[in-house]
């Protein structure tokens, strides 16, 4: 403990010393209480609420919201700072610059990423300051959701499972650390979360039944501090929910989204991925802990405090990685620390985040049909008839889920939880030949058959009832991927910023969903809106494709 303390004070000292070199540093404490001129971590703060206390833009003046600047991310690697161990980019190669990342805003600079790319963009003007490009050895470049920051250091996950640290001032690489061998089908898409002196970053894959885990690394050196395996190993608690260690060690559960954190409890809240093989559960009878779960881990040790399983023995690719949102409420006269998740499987859960005990479980889409109800712990009871069948099982939601990675929002002003939702249907066919063993996505065939549309829903987490629903007219009779609707942001200006299938940014009344303002984007919003104050001006920044838009009030 003493060693840790002196280490921390050393770090603090080194931070102070470098303060004069690089301008304003982001101290870990700054993320605990973010200043209005910052968006210092993926969720804006550690609660996962995607809520801002700013009121300069509000219901009375939002009609005057107008474009401040627009920036196109440069997909060319010409002029980029190059790192990585893979082959040189081909001449004229253009990188994937589809913006899924939530930008960070620190000291007037926006930092964001796309697969293999990191960018610094001046938040006042939209001018690109530097571009870093990672030559990947391979891995899936499906997306990258952002950067983490500590002091003057940025952290980026790469498709080939490296954690890369950059100098925020220059974009130059400080170090890179390999987390796993990408050839074994490990890849990374997440935004690392920085808490105190921990960089939290996951590992996992999709096709080859690799194990998932979360690890904590030292922000200064990149050295591993602890590693939490998302499925148990031989002899560990939870192994009884697998037939054997062979299955558990190939059981998936990659915790592929940023965590949330309660500093008083010193617990991080982690959503875990689906079990593997994904669709056919023959080789993994049991509930398959800790797949499709919300788990609480000690920040400093990685030791699990509790778990709640959102989809026991999942066979539908319904991970439970959606943001565990932290909020407080009074129930029966008692102040409670709570956590809510609108899960991919269509179920909305409220848990006591001290104990993990269930407070509320309720479907948040009307079409959900694969569960028989909830058990005594509030966990859904899977209907075995809705596992893939030879003749087909009609299941809702579909693979994309009722919700996916795009973050929801919680407003302490209304006490409402806002989430986009999709009512997709899929026919799950079992197509595993007799005598063969399923692996990856094998053995099942998912035939999407459209759906009953998409909607933005305002859920009262204490009752599970929905205060209002905005059904997107452009999605009726279809089942767009939930993440294509974009993430959400609520503000103390009593505004909810949302995207949707029509390719607009909309500002809605948090209390009833009325649309108060909108602006067309070149394509659908592809990330999550953020907001901040600079020089007395409040900005709202969103990404759509390779374009970043900043809106502010007309003067």
């Amino acid at each position, binding site marked *: 403990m003493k060693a840790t303390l002196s280490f921390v004070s050393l770090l603090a000292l080194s931070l102070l010393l470098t303060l004069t070199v690089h301008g304003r540093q982001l101290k870990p404490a700054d993320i605990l209480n973010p200043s209005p001129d910052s968006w210092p971590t993926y969720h804006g703060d550690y609660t996962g609420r995607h809520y801002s206390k700013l009121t300069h833009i509000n219901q009375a003046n939002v009609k005057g919201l107008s474009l401040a600047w627009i920036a196109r991310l440069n997909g060319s690697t010409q002029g980029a700072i190059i790192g990585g161990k893979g082959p040189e980019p081909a001449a004229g190669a253009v990188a*994937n610059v589809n913006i899924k990342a939530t930008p960070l805003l620190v000291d007037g600079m926006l930092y964001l990423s796309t697969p293999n790319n990191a960018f610094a963009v001046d938040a006042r003007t939209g001018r690109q300051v530097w571009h870093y490009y990672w030559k990947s050895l391979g891995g899936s470049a499906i997306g990258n959701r952002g950067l983490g920051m500590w002091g003057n250091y940025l952290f980026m996950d790469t498709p080939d499972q490296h954690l890369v640290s950059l100098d925020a001032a220059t974009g130059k690489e400080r170090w890179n650390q390999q987390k796993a061998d990408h050839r074994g089908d490990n890849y990374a898409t997440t935004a690392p979360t920085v808490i105190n002196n921990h960089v939290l970053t996951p590992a996992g894959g999709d*096709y080859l039944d690799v194990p998932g885990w979360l690890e904590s690394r030292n922000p200064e050196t990149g050295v591993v501090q602890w590693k939490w395996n998302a499925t148990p190993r031989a002899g560990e608690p939870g192994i009884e929910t697998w037939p054997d260690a*062979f299955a558990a060690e190939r059981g998936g559960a990659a915790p592929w989204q940023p965590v949330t954190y309660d500093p008083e409890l010193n617990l991080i809240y982690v959503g875990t991925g689906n079990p593997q093989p994904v669709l056919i559960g023959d080789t993994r009878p049991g509930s398959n802990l800790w797949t499709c779960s919300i788990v609480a881990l000690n920040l400093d040790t990685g030791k699990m405090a509790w778990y709640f399983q959102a989809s026991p023995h999942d066979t539908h690719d319904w991970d439970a990685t959606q943001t565990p949102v932290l909020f407080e409420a009074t129930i029966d006269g008692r102040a409670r620390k709570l956590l809510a998740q609108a899960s991919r499987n269509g179920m909305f859960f409220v848990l006591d985040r001290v104990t993990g005990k269930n407070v509320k479980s309720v479907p948040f889409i009307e079409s959900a049909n694969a569960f028989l109800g909830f058990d005594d712990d509030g966990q859904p009871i899977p209907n075995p008839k809705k596992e893939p069948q030879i003749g087909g099982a009609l299941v809702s939601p579909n693979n994309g889920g009722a919700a996916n990675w795009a973050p929801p929002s919680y407003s302490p002003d209304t006490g409402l939880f806002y989430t986009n939702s999709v009512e997709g249907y899929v026919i799950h066919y079992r197509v595993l030949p007799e005598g063969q063993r399923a692996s*990856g996505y094998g053995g*099942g065939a998912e035939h999407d058959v459209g759906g009953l549309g998409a909607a933005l829903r305002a859920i009262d987490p204490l009752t599970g009832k929905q205060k209002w629903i905005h059904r997107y007219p*452009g999605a009726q009779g279809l089942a767009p991927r939930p993440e294509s609707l974009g993430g959400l942001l609520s503000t103390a200006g009593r505004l909810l910023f949302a995207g949707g299938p029509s390719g607009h940014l909309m500002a809605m009344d948090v209390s009833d969903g009325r649309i108060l303002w909108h602006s067309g984007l070149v394509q659908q919003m592809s990330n999550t809106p953020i907001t901040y104050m600079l020089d007395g001006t409040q900005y709202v920044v969103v990404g759509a494709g390779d374009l970043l838009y900043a809106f502010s009030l007309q003067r």
Partner: protein
Amino acid sequence: MVTVRARVFCRHVALPLAIVAIQGAALAWLGGSTGPVVTTAAQAPQGPVSQGRGPGPGGPGGPGITGRGRGPIFDQAAIARARIVFEPLCGFCHGNDARGRAGGPDLARSLIVIGDTKGNELGPFIRAGRPERGMPPFPNLTQEQLSDIAEFLHERVQAARNRAVIDPKASVVGDPAAGVVYFNGAGKCISCHSVTGDLAGIGAKYDPMTLQDRLVNPRPGGRGAAANVTPRAARTAAVTLPSGEIVTGRLDFISEFAVTVLESSGRRRSFTRNGDSPRVVVTDPLQAHYDLMRSYNDNDLHDLTAYLVTIR
């Protein structure tokens, strides 16, 4: 399952229906339902397809290969020759399918296999063995045999990444007689369809899986097939302008803020929307199918499919 009792309060969506054609289809590709054709060793005689979910040629190990797409085509004769050698020599530890047992690792996940090109790493490795971990050397295998084994093991890797082989015919499990009853009764299919009229020959037109998919939703939104809407199934819109004029036609586009109608003359007319003004009513000829989605039970669906495949 208890349904959500929600107070629906939404002034901006007065529409019973609407459509979006492009974005859902493009993004649904990520869901990977409609995959490319990949032939594999386990191919059944009917020529079924494997639904690709895994990464493209070279797999995730291949530099720069980042998408999900078509896999390589394997030399089936080489694989057949390899199995004859592999099963007695290697199957006891690795399983005849090479997917591992308690005694030996899953070779579809082996980094040596994944990193190999046409036996360049595997050949020397197999010949030398790994005695310290219990794998004996196989110095007498010929170059051809090693090359065949490499082909077999690469096929195993690809099979492990991809979705399984599909035999669409295997999906018929229902009772055709019960299907007739449902067609004429609870399903109310007969109120729009006739097996001697519009559905004549339907069982010969589609394989059973496709038939079942399409009977659930003839407009398979989100699978890139939204454009395959027949004129009969097209949605129409009636827009009532402030002047009282009613503009009707095929619904081309709708959002919270605009509606576009394609008139029968071919003229395309767009109107901005502000809440309920102008009033827009969308009519969907396939509404009965959407109503059924929530209420189907799988047995009804299987019976209906079993019946319709007999309509030839």
